[in-house]
């Protein structure tokens, strides 16, 4: 990702529930997704019957471990376009930094995220 595009999605969910909702959605599109804490570099696979991490608020998301490793090796090369989402989760909004918001998977993820984060004024812990 070189000079990614910031897409801001308003959220009524509160930070932690927005993280969970975002990661659940990501897993629909990238079933083997790997999440990396942007502050520590620690990676977590987000599947297989474990509750999702809810305390991360600045994270990189890759489709799988192999792609994450390629990002480590190559950095922001064009061949890796649209294979990483940088998510910054705050109380009232989620910012997704992406290469191309119109790329199919990214577009569907962003559209779904807008939908779920606006769904319900009854979210507990809402901003």
């Amino acid at each position, binding site marked *: 990702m070189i000079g990614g595009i910031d897409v801001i999605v308003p959220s009524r969910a509160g930070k932690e529930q927005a993280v*969970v909702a975002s990661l659940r*959605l990501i897993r629909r599109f990238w*079933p083997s997704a790997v999440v990396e804490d942007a502050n520590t570099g620690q990676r977590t696979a*987000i*599947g297989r019957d474990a*509750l999702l*991490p809810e305390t991360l608020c600045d994270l990189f998301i890759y489709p799988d471990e192999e792609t994450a490793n390629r990002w480590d090796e190559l950095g922001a090369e064009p061949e890796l376009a649209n294979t990483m989402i940088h998510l910054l989760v705050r109380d009232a909004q989620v910012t997704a930094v992406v290469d191309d918001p119109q790329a199919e998977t990214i577009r*569907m993820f962003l559209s779904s995220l807008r939908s779920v984060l606006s769904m319900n004024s009854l979210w*507990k812990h809402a901003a």
Partner: protein
Amino acid sequence: MSKTLPQDLEQLIRTCGEDWLIDSFHPREQAVDVLHKALHGATEEAGRRGLALPFQESDLIAQYEQHPFQVDAFLQALGVTRNPVMLVMVWRILQGATISSVTLQYENMQSFHLRVALTSPYGEGEPEEYESRSVNDAGLLRHFGIMTVDGQPVFDGFYALRLGGQD
């Protein structure tokens, strides 16, 4: 939400701000015992399904340390239902199961039938079926994440809601 780790189920409930689970119970002094029994029932139901789920008090407290908001959502479910089948369903959703279908049949003053099918997000195993004949369990549906994905309807996730009396 406090970072101090609760020591027992009552502290866990109160730390999550779900005091109503205990305080609105009648008789109040029996609330924790009843909730323990519900968790025990859920553990047994999970076992019947070949699942090892963390419904013991110590398990929930341990999960709370890393996942306080998802444990909170489960505790709210415990306030809606003591039905072990539904409690297992809720935890499976929290674990990431996909809500693949919901069937609700209701006839005023006659019948209620809720059926939820869950599948693995990885396409593994057989669908899991969860059924209830108790209308109270309809309250669980309010906690489902509701959205569209590519214009199509989706229920996904189980979330804590702001309930009456909560800030």
